[in-house]
């Protein structure tokens, strides 16, 4: 148990893995446990529950008079229920301010954390940052940049809506082109609003260089952002030591969204044809919640590739992933968006699987082409087909890339770096710049 004097860290997250598994929230809980186990700080985890665009959807607070409730037996894990009535997905804020000015504020005052570490503001709202600052003026605010929602209204994907091309340049004009019914002025107002709240953050943590660069381009001061990549809990399994004569088994793990590139992957399998000496397994969930045209195209592509592709469907992450990874040789990440620092790549590496991925953003940063995996041109089924063929048919390639897999960053080491960030923020606490504004002297104006 942490000592009573340990500084308290509040981790705020848009979800709790207890409610629904997910990448960012899973990482956040892993971080919580690693910080707790290290003992120097006492972490408190506050995860959102409530209505959501994706199931499971919780429609009422757990208790009639308290939106806050504990999770299981851990005195430092909590859920906070927030509704989505009138939620503004453009500015990303809720009209129900009492959730933050009363419930969340009371929670802060009760716990008095020394540091508040935001993991995600999705479905919460960016004004949570200001209430945190108002309530605990001396507590540093740390913010994990899991995604690009503040920058991009297109679900933070930074993909243009009309042609799915990649976007690295957010301007009111270009955003208006993606969403013609929203004026450029409205996009400027959105950007100003996001930045007015993010300005209260003391230190941002970016999971990749790529994420940091995007936020610096967008206007966050570079000196405020520290790159610190994702990490995994220690590998709980023995390494897969199977020896197959051929390394031609491919697998996809993940959600079925239009940005994950499953269509690119299936088209590549189609190009390779029925005679291809290799097989693809597709593991994932939530196909049924996707748009009908997406599901239709997916089914159509599956039918055309039925000889070489198996649709395996959902799997249990905790109990099945290791075995499924063992049954494959290569893990494919064909995302057509940037990703931040894909956790599935770390899982593949833990299981000793080289990764074939799109050559952009967080993916190409995590997987080194020709060392720990192969890159292909993002969104290009022909290039992916070539990579798959090469992977399946080049003798010795798998073993070479297998040997090139880097050690997976251990969450305990990661937590130690994050603890450094907390210490640094706490030390700077008193010197945090207070906004004063720049006033120009009239004499200076007239002599100019």
């Amino acid at each position: 148990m942490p000592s009573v004097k340990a500084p308290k860290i509040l981790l705020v997250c848009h979800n709790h893995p207890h409610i629904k598994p997910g990448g960012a929230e899973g990482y956040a809980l892993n971080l919580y446990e690693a910080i707790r186990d290290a003992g120097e700080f006492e972490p408190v985890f506050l995860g959102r529950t409530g209505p959501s665009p994706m199931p499971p959807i919780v429609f009422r607070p757990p208790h009639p008079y308290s939106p806050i409730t504990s999770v299981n037996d851990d005195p430092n894990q909590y859920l906070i229920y927030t509704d989505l009535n009138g939620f503004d997905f453009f500015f990303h804020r809720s009209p129900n301010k009492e959730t933050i000015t009363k419930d969340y504020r009371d929670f802060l005052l009760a716990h008095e954390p020394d540091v508040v570490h935001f993991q995600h503001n999705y479905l919460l709202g960016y004004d949570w940052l200001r209430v945190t600052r108002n309530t605990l003026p001396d507590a540093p605010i740390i913010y994990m940049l899991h995604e690009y929602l503040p920058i991009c209204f297109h679900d933070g994907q930074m993909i243009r809506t009309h042609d799915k091309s990649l976007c690295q340049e957010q301007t009111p004009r270009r955003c208006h082109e993606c969403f013609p019914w929203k004026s450029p002025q409205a996009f400027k107002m959105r950007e100003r609003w996001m930045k007015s709240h993010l300005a209260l953050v003391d230190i941002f943590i970016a999971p990749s260089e790529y994420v940091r660069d995007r936020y610096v381009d967008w206007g966050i001061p570079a000196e405020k952002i520290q790159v610190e990549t994702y990490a995994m809990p220690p590998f709980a399994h023995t390494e897969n030591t199977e020896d197959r004569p051929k390394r031609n088994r491919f697998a996809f793990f993940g959600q079925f969204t239009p940005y994950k590139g499953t269509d690119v992957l299936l088209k590549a399998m189609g190009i390779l044809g029925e005679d291809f000496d290799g097989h693809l397994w597709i593991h994932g969930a939530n196909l049924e919640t996707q748009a009908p045209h997406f599901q239709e195209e997916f089914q159509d592509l599956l039918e055309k590739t039925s000889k070489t592709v198996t649709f395996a469907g959902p799997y249990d992450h905790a109990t099945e992933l290791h075995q499924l990874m063992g049954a494959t040789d290569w893990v494919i990440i064909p995302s057509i968006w940037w990703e931040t620092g894909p956790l599935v790549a770390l899982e593949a590496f833990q299981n000793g699987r080289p990764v074939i991925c799109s050559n952009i953003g967080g993916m190409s940063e995590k997987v080194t082409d020709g060392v720990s995996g192969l890159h292909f041109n993002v969104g290009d089924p022909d290039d992916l087909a070539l990579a798959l063929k090469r992977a399946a048919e080049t003798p010795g390639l798998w073993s070479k890339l297998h040997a090139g897999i880097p050690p997976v960053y251990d969450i305990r080491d990661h937590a130690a770096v994050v603890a450094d960030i907390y210490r640094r923020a706490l030390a700077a606490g008193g010197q945090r710049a207070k906004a004063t504004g720049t006033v120009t002297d009239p004499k200076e104006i007239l002599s100019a």
Partner: protein
Amino acid sequence: MPDGSATWLSNDVLLLVTSSADDVALAVDGSRPMDAQSLDVGSSVLHVVVLPSGVRRAQVEVEATDVKAFLRTHLAALDSAMRNRVTDFIASAAGSATKPTLSETLVEVREVLRERLPLKVNSPDGPRGMIVDHILRVDDRSFYVKGWAHDAEAEIVRLTAVSPEGSRVELLDKLVRQPRPDVLEWSSVFNPDAGAEPGFICFFELDAPSLLHGPWVFEMENADGVVGEIAGPRVTRDMPDVQAQIFHDFAEVRVLDDRLMEDHVSPAMMRLQQRANATIKIDQITEYGTAPTSPDVSIVVPVYQNIEHLEAQLAEFADDPAMHAADIVYVLDSPEAADSFDYLASHLYPIYLVPFRIAFLEQNAGFSGAINAGASIARGRLLLLLNSDVLPDKPGWLETMRAFYDSQPQIGALAPKLLYEDDSIQHAGMHFTRSPGQSVWQDAQYYKGLHRTFPKANVARTVPAVTGACMMIDRALFEEFGGLSGNYVRGDYEDFDLCLRLIESGRENWFLPAAELYHLEAQSYTADLRQPSNRYNVWLHTHLWKDRIGELLTAEDLQGEASTNDKIRTAAP
């Protein structure tokens, strides 16, 4: 006084007939004589007495008879012209006591006495016709009508409007004619080349108020003595509908005719504005947090419809100490949104902690009305008029503006650089231009659309006018000038009007590029609503200022060549 020689038109209006023009021998409680207005109708004299306030009908010693019996006995035998004079006289004389009940009685008087002319039934093959499309009530005594009247056989020599109460107004010498291609097409007889255009628009005033929706009567007579009448449509009384209808008529006119504008459209619009301005009232003032009691600056922000801009603005204000020291007054000009705005404000204050007040207006007042109402409760020595969609680029702007304002003894209005969302210039001072051959002065923006760093746009200097979207002015000066003019419709040109008045009194208007704000306007732009009012405001601004714009400003000002003009002051004395 003989029995039957008097009748009550209402509780306080008495109609009498006597044999001579002598004083009316009428007493209250046996003593006090009263004034009457009289009309000689030939064999006798008709008197209208309006009881002074405080005198009740029961106190007047008179034997009165029923109205209809009175009219039949004393007036029915008069000729039709005299009977028309009588109804007009009674309506005018009783005018000061007009109430709906009196008006109802006056309709009866009119119907008993007036000569009914042949009812006009318009047909495509008839030689003449008349229609009144609408009657708009501008105020109780002034009306605006639009219609058409055409006679293919002889010139129309008389067009008379008769109010329900019997007031008669000749329209022919006042109205302006309008083309009516629809009427010419409909008729198989009317000749487009003969005589005047069939359409007309007319603003007119009555001697007495008219309170009823109808029935109005319109009479027509041609040079051959052929007469006829039509019934007018129900009067449009609701002010927004009246304004919208005038704008609608006006939008159909391609080339603005000065007579149409000066004699019909602008008198009607200005009276409507006066009526609207007279009713502006703050319903309630609510304070969120504790607003400073003796601040340097009061910021007045009118809020119309887009109440959610409050959240964006407060988020920008929160980290600027100057905003916590200022007296911020939001003026809600959308009364229907009062509850939502109050809810929003009370929930946003605990997040942003910038104190402010909201003045909730009883009804929509327009930009100038909202600004003037907000200024009336301002506490600061200086006023900053600010639009709700203006967001500062960075903290410090207000103090920069204040310091500059205080450094210039002759200053009138001061405005900063305003930016579009893409960092191009929206406002760097204003001037006026006139297109070749055009009479109207258009406002024009210096360096519009150029980048915010454009060197010529980064010189502090005097300019002909500045925008009201973010304008600083001494509060006492603002009050001395009576605030923003209420003549313009829906918020347009009153800022330039104020700037010209300031120049006329020897003041200077300054543009200050050292303060930069974004003006994120047109997020909910409804072009069709603004377009006619803008056209009207442009005309009105030119009409009110005419050649004085040319006298007050230099040629360089007018051409927008400020950067090369050495008369422009760019340095302190």
